[in-house]
């Protein structure tokens, strides 16, 4: 036996024992940073372990953007697109309206009444003068913004308005729009608030 071995493994002093010492602070910090980065990566790449999300898709929202639209979903997407480009400029993307420009559509009694078609008349002929919306007085002019839209597009946008931002009213069909367009005729006169109220009765 060499001297080296003797020094290294002498058993006279008994079994070696492990002692404790605190982990250095930098290791703890780096570990926590790695765990945090891993969490961020999982959050953005795992699709929350959804069985329908496969790479290269990283989330169900991303997958949703590639779903071909048809039927009710397509009409709703179309309605939203039309709303954003025609109505949303004054009524706002959130449907809350803009002071001095346009009243709210979200929760408005003019929008959500079932079985009444006042809402269909407004974009086809416009509104002029005083009108009361959700207990608030407005005195503005709205042109016949929807008169130039095809029946399907106007029906889609009205359906969108009746279903978005918490509104829950029945859908509008292209046939209904067509009937009212015929009823109003070629040279529409803007309605007043009173005329519209009478339609409800």
């Amino acid at each position: 036996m060499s001297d080296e071995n003797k020094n290294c493994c002498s058993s006279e002093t008994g079994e070696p024992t492990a002692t404790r010492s605190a982990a250095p602070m930098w290791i703890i910090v780096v570990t926590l940073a790695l765990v945090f980065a891993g969490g961020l990566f999982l959050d953005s790449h795992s699709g929350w372990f959804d069985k329908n999300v496969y790479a290269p898709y990283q989330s169900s929202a991303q997958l949703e953007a590639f779903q071909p639209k048809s039927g009710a979903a397509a009409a709703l997407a179309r309605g939203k697109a039309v709303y954003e480009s025609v109505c949303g400029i004054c009524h706002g993307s959130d449907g809350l309206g803009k002071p001095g420009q346009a009243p709210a559509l979200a929760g408005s009694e003019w929008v959500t009444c079932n079985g009444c078609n006042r809402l269909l008349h407004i974009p086809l002929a416009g509104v002029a003068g005083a009108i009361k919306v959700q207990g608030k007085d407005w005195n503005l002019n709205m042109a016949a913004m929807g008169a130039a839209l095809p029946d399907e597009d106007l029906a889609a946008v009205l359906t969108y308005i009746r279903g978005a931002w918490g509104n829950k009213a029945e859908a509008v069909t292209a046939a209904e729009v067509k009937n009212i367009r015929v009823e109003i005729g070629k040279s529409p006169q803007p309605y007043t608030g009173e005329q519209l109220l009478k339609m409800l009765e």
Partner: protein
Amino acid sequence: MKTGFSVFLAAFVALGASWFGLVYGPLKQLGVATETKVLQSDAKWPLQRTGDATLGLQVYRSAGCAACHTEQVRQTGSANVLTITEIGSHQPADLKGFINSLSGSVIELMNASNAVAANLAGWNGELPKVLYSGADDTVVSMLGDKLKAVGVKTEARVVATGADIARGWGTRQSVAADYLYDAPVQLGNLRAGPDLATIGVRAPDVNWQLQHLYAPRSLVKNSTMPAFRFLFAVQKIGAQPAPDALVLPKEFAPADGYEVVPTAEAKQLVAYLLTLKNNAPLYEAPFTPITVAK
């Protein structure tokens, strides 16, 4: 050993966590999978196999096809594509200017304006013309609406992208639903031969498949596939030639007076190959099979 229990506990937690994540979780998600719905259709996916095709999977397995063929199409991305199909009475140059002005002024199109301008550069009116290809579906719907308003017809499609798709091996990636009726699943891990996930679409002819199994090089000149002659019987022509005898070119045909007849296994294998289609759009692997005109 004072720390024995801690070591046991640590090992238990480590193995238990992996078992939970790698065995229990996937089993809970995919072990109970049933047929899924085909997008924009009432059809279900995948289609149940016939008895012959189900047996054919076992022939595929025993012949070792999976050693050289995969059954998995990969995809690296997806794109919403807008294509001009009709320009009506417009001049291409005017339309180009109009579209470029649109993508400069409409907020939703701003991010796509460079891509659209690049696609339009050098366009002299030939149709169909891909106007936009990218991830943003609002660009496609917005641009489609704006063009529709001026009488230009467009088509919006969702397409899968990637090397396998470019090779023509499929229209979308393979997903778990495609393997519902495969037992065992023949994924394969080597592509000495082409991927077979859509072979039922690419080569749907039974006679072609049988001849290709008997003599691959009679149909694909430089094929490296071995001839699977044990799946066929070479027999003397009787009073009448067998109705299912292969029609082979001269250099691959047997001696005069003999004919090549596929065995039941060969027919089962081909029945199985023809069920490999992977061509239905699913929620988890969307694409547009037919063009949707706006």
